[in-house]
């Protein structure tokens, strides 16, 4: 087995077990699905631009809104966060890779299998059309149409990918930190990634069983969610939101972590109340499991449950508010540099506060009953998920781009991107508050003339195309930077954490010498010290070059993870088309077993940098 054979082109990416390459793969895949999900959204907005829209049929509209949400949640925001976590979590804690590199590759390829599987459904008789929440009995009826089978199985396998990478990340954080990197010294982004992993770890099994029950109801005739045979559709709502609400924090916490890294760097101040930010993140994680039923206030839970969940929902705003004030405290009195990552972080705070406040209005049960299933809710969660999660992720992209590629994204184009996106976002989603309060229901493909909904719908459509334009600007920036970008150097932003102490892009083994950490923001304290007046002064003494270490073991590339996940893809397709699909199920299972067996027999590491 020659080294070079494993290092060529596509093959190198297919077999990689390097957390950085896997991170890049996640990122590019997420960007691809972002375009897909964005186009779905543009179709929806075109249909709703004028009353009595003619562009889509009701059936096509159902597929598009279902797939828009499913794509954006599971195939864009989650993998984009996974991309940054994969790339930076090991570096931030001073490790050379994650705990299980090949399991990491497997998670990625299983995610790709699930994403392709979901998207393929468009071309074989229609995509899922029962909403991303798949409420029973809508999702369990019509068993002769396979659309919701694609949904149930696709989400199932995406969940598998996420559980595996959660186990991986948690193990990495608890066993692979560099010497001196105590848990409380971990960068906040690493902390939030850990909390997210725990949320996924404990919420995904619940939806796994729920989805299994939906699949069995559809294909085996079980009666879990069929009221006719004594089942209870409300159970599905519980299981879905027991997963679905922690999932909301899965989407937003990585962005909060990014903002907590970006603000201190561009304010040249340590994060204000750092431990409060960390503990409020943990608190959000715990409380995120205690608020699920606020999605079900109109399901008739009874006054006790409604009052209890109304209270917990109000309480969860507290740790979130703590974070907002800590971020403001960080900027306060700092020497602020308004670079693009900083703009996106500030945009995040502004938009997330709006989304958070409209969220708290949902905790009031009678008011929620009024807003339920209206565009007010759509406005709310786009402010937190687009204004929050997506702005946070773009902040992270601009911030870490130079580290990953070695080149700085263009600042002027970046600013144009930010302002177009910021304006477009508000044009699209702010009017939806008004539309919702005026009674426009969600998920309806048409509205009649003369209801007072025309103007704001048109504005929202214009806004959505502004967002699309801003994304084109971003792609232009990407292309331009790849062609003529300035070299970034190791530490373009005067950063505070370990990733800026190594070259851009980082070497395959991350650290020549595993760093020994002495404080929070360790890299900053290696560069600066304080004088009597409390001002930062550059440290002049360059630390002596550390002694060379022995050979570094790196995980060897492996094609087994990709092979095993290709088996899973075939197996899933077979499960949709039972009973004849059983042949494909068998073939897929054999390929998967082959991949897993080969994987467990493979030698673990190759010698490198001897």
């Amino acid at each position, binding site marked *: 087995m020659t080294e070079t054979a494993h290092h060529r082109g596509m093959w190198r990416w297919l077999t990689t077990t390097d957390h950085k390459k896997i991170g890049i793969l996640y990122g590019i895949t997420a960007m691809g699905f972002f375009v897909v999900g964005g186009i779905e959204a543009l179709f929806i907005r075109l249909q709703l631009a004028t009353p009595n829209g003619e562009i889509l049929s009701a059936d096509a509209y159902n597929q598009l809104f279902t797939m828009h949400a499913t794509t954006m949640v599971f195939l864009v925001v989650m993998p984009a966060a996974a991309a940054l976590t994969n790339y930076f979590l090991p570096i931030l804690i001073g490790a050379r890779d994650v705990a299980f590199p090949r399991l990491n590759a497997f998670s990625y390829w299983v995610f790709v299998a699930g994403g392709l599987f979901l998207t393929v459904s468009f071309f074989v008789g229609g995509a899922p059309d029962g909403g991303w929440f798949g409420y029973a009995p809508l999702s369990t009826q019509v068993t002769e149409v396979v659309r919701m089978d694609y949904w149930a199985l696709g989400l199932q396998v995406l969940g598998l990918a996420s559980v595996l990478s959660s186990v991986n990340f*948690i193990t990495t954080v608890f066993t692979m930190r560099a010497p001196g990197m105590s848990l409380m010294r971990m960068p906040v982004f690493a902390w939030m990634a850990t909390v997210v992993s725990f949320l996924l770890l404990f919420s995904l*099994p619940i939806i796994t069983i729920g989805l299994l*029950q939906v699949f069995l109801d559809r294909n*085996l005739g079980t*009666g*879990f969610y069929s009221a006719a*045979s004594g*089942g*209870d559709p409300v159970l599905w709502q519980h299981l879905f939101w027991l997963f679905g609400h922690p999932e909301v924090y899965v989407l937003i916490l990585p962005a909060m972590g990014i903002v907590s890294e970006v603000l201190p760097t561009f304010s040249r101040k340590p994060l204000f109340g750092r431990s409060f930010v960390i503990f409020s993140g943990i608190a959000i994680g715990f409380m995120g499991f205690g608020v699920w039923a606020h999605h079900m206030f109109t399901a008739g839970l009874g006054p006790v449950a409604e009052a209890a969940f109304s209270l917990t929902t109000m309480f969860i705003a507290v740790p979130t508010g703590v974070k907002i004030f800590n971020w403001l405290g960080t900027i306060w009195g700092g020497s602020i540099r308004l670079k693009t990552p900083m703009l996106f972080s500030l945009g995040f705070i502004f938009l997330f506060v709006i989304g958070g406040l409209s969220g708290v209005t949902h905790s009031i049960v009678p008011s929620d009953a009024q807003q339920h299933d209206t565009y007010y809710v759509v406005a709310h969660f786009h402010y937190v998920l687009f204004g929050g999660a997506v702005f946070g992720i773009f902040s992270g992209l601009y911030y870490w781009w130079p580290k990953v590629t070695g080149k700085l994204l263009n600042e002027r184009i970046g600013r144009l991107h930010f302002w177009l996106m910021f304006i477009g976002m508000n044009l699209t989603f702010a009017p939806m508050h008004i539309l919702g309060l005026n009674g426009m229901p969600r998920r309806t493909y048409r509205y009649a003339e003369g209801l007072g909904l025309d103007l704001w719908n048109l504005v929202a459509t214009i806004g959505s195309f502004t967002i699309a334009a801003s994304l084109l600007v971003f792609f232009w920036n990407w292309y331009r930077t790849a062609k003529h970008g300035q070299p970034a150097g190791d530490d373009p932003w005067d950063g505070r954490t370990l990733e800026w102490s190594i070259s851009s892009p980082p070497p395959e083994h991350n650290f020549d010498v595993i760093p020994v950490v002495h404080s929070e923001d360790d890299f900053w304290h290696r560069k600066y010290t304080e004088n009597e007046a409390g001002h930062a002064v550059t440290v002049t003494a360059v630390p002596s070059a550390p002694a060379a270490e*022995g050979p570094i073991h790196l995980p060897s590339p492996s094609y087994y993870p990709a092979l095993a996940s290709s088996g899973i893809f075939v197996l899933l397709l077979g499960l949709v088309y039972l009973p004849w699909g059983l042949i494909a199920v068998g073939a897929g299972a054999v390929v998967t077993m082959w991949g897993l067996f080969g994987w467990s027999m493979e030698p673990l590491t190759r010698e490198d940098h001897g």
Partner: protein
Amino acid sequence: MSVALHEEHAHDPAHIRKVAMWVFLGSECLLFGTLISTFLLYRTRTGSGPTAADVFDIPFTSVSSFILLMSSLTMVLAHHSSVRKDYRQMRLWLVATALLGVTFLAGQVFEFTEFVHEGLTVTTSPFGSSFFVLTSFHGAHVAVGVLMLLVTALMSFTGKWRPDAGMDVELVGLYWHFVDIVWIVIFTVVYLLQV
């Protein structure tokens, strides 16, 4: 499946894998929690089909539960032998554990056929659906465990097997005991409390 780390920082690979296993088992708790609570919600929704008291045969299930419980003893003895590097003994206990697991599965198959004869199938009622899905989901876990036990026993003959890598006996053991404790809960909550 672990990255070898630099000796200086001596992250023990066995420790790393055990952390991952315990994290994974924590997650599995929620999996079975969902199944068991679905059953609890539907335990009396039997429609026109048989009820729990009609079909359950407690003496029979007690015996098969006892067999699974004792397989945890043979499992822990296998682990003990592997720690002492007595691989002959270890293989013996591994195979014994797998046999007890297979016996439990055979008992489950017998039980299922009996229930079907008495008119309880997976489509009869929500009670039937949730009972069969819960217990067969657990059975699938047992089957996977049996497979891992046999593979570990077989691999220990070959030169490729390293006691400290891959699916070592301790990890298989943790998984196996977990499947056992889930059955302890199922036996009480699903069987004993419903008759």
